[in-house]
């Protein structure tokens, strides 16, 4: 629609026009917009946790054990979300917990993007033996259910949040490799790559300057979706006792702690669970919006 107009303008404003049209497409999707708002609030919480959280997340208030949230009978404004079984303030733990969610998502995605894109490009550019080796290796990882593989990896590396993140990243890498390779292969057949080759571009230049930018759209969508799965899987590992260890205020670990109080004090389990659900839901909404804006062919949620 506005493609021709963009091409005719100078480079600087062309970029602005692309961004503007991206923002226009993105905003069309109301869900994505709300998701972005929720994630922005969460990001602020994560950054300003030291300033906005009312208490320390690990300090135990022995005179206020298992206090219900303020909207339930017996709750006080001193602890808005109540306290857990050890008397730690739930609100503060939730606020600090948002840090871990971003931390997990960002680290996992960084590992996946770096390793996955490298391997995918190498596979696409080196047909034959190297490609076969890489792709078979990915098949092997994909043959194990991801949570089981991550669980086994953490058992080897030792239970900790960092090891859980590494394990999750390893399990997600094959998706990035396959996507990058498929995308790069389809780009490699195009004229602009052949002409760049004819002009004597090096392989590194072909890989990173010519081909990679044209593979980015689906990779961004995949990264967004993996961000939310990483949070879910890290919470699941935490829940099984193989992720973050006490007293880290990670939401999955908090859920595991609250499990024995599920009948007597259900809010202890409800609050972190809802937080995980809303975070993952928001990221998935953003992912849907990104896909609609970046790749009009794959439109799913637009009418």
């Amino acid at each position, binding site marked *: 629609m506005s493609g021709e107009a963009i091409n005719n303008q100078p480079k600087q404003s062309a970029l602005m026009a692309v961004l503007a049209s991206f923002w226009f497409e993105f905003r069309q999707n109301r869900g994505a917009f709300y998701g972005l708002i929720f994630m922005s609030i969460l990001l602020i919480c994560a950054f300003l946790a030291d300033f906005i959280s009312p208490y320390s997340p690990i300090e135990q208030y022995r005179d206020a054990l298992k206090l219900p949230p303020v909207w339930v009978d017996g709750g006080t404004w001193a602890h808005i979300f109540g306290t857990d079984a050890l008397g730690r303030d739930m609100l503060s733990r939730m606020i600090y917990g948002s840090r871990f969610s971003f931390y997990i998502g960002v680290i996992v995605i960084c590992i996946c993007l770096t390793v996955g894109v490298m391997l995918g490009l190498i596979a696409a550019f080196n047909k034959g033996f190297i490609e076969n080796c890489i792709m078979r290796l990915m098949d092997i990882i994909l043959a194990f259910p991801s949570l089981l593989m991550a669980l086994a990896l953490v058992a*080897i590396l030792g239970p900790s949040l960092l090891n859980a993140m590494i394990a999750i990243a390893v399990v997600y890498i094959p998706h990035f490799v396959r996507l990058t390779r498929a995308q790069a292969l389809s780009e490699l057949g195009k004229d602009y790559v052949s002409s760049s080759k004819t002009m004597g571009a090096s392989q590194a230049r072909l890989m990173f300057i010519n081909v990679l930018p044209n593979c980015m759209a689906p990779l961004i969508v995949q990264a967004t979706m993996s961000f939310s799965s990483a949070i879910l899987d890290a919470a699941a590992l935490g*829940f099984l006792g193989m992720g973050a260890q006490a007293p880290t205020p990670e939401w999955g670990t908090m859920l595991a702690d609250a499990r024995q109080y599920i009948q007597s004090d259900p809010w202890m389990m409800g609050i972190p669970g809802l937080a995980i659900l809303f975070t993952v839901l928001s990221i998935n909404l953003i992912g849907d919006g990104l896909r609609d804006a970046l790749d009009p062919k794959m439109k799913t949620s637009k009418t």
Partner: protein
Amino acid sequence: MFSFLFRRLLVLIPTYIGITLTAFVFIRVIPGDPILVMSGERSPSPEKYAELMHAFGFDQPLYVQYFEYVKDLLQGDFGKSIVTGRPVLEEFFELFPATVELAAFALFFALLIGIPAGIIAAVKRGTFYDHTLMTISLTGFSMPLFWWALLLIVFFSGYLGWTPVSGRISALYFFDTPTGFMLIDSWLSNEEGAFKSAVMHLILPAVALGTIPMATFARQSRSAMLETLGEDFIKTARAKGLSPFKVTVVHAFRNALIPIVTVIGLSVGVLLGGAILTETIFSWPGIGKWMVDSIFRRDYPVVQGGLILIATIVIMVNLTVDVLYGIIDPRISKKGH
């Protein structure tokens, strides 16, 4: 068709070697001495230690150990559990029906609700129904499974008291389990109430496990249906005066099946992964719980054998899906894709 199948099987060989190698390496790279780790608190005497080292073959060079292991595998010997002393394969086949039963019902539930929901959303695109169904399915898709399972327990078992909390059948019933599938066995047993008890035990875990696949199916079938509904042959079918039902189900749905079958195939891995959490929460005695328990108990032969067996299932399912493609869309196997 057969050359297609043959080529697919040939590619599996290196993958399979890799899988056995991965499972084999898992045990060897664990920090610390495997014998000391396995024996835990009870530190063995030097003689006992040497004996154990020899029994597990750890005194051999690594490559010899690997070939010995593969040789055993090819003869169907997956080693013995350290905790129970029983062969891994025997334990696996004893617990496997429980997981199949759970996963099959979860899949059934997911298909029964997910696909019609997706079709309705696609046909009623842009309406209130579409938005509601897609919001529900995205929520289901984003649900932390372990939390959802606990919520179901709190509400249906705790608050309403409709279903039991854990296990496969009430402890009051005793009967033979020739098939291992509790629904069939309880039906055959002729014990009054046994079948009902088995069904009640199955419902909640199956719904919990089926929720995420259900949401995936709904989303996928909606987008696949939207794609085919826009094609020319649908317009032709409509122009011919076929009923909307026939156009939707016979013409559009059949052509939307390829992407849907893909997701169903992929969801088997999701179901097996989800079974780990579901079985742990509902104390369902299947292979998911077995693997988690073994990982925690450091029962390494079980972890090793279990990983290989589970990977085998995933690979077999993927192969079946590939063959199914050829049946649904003959163009694919001809292209040799």
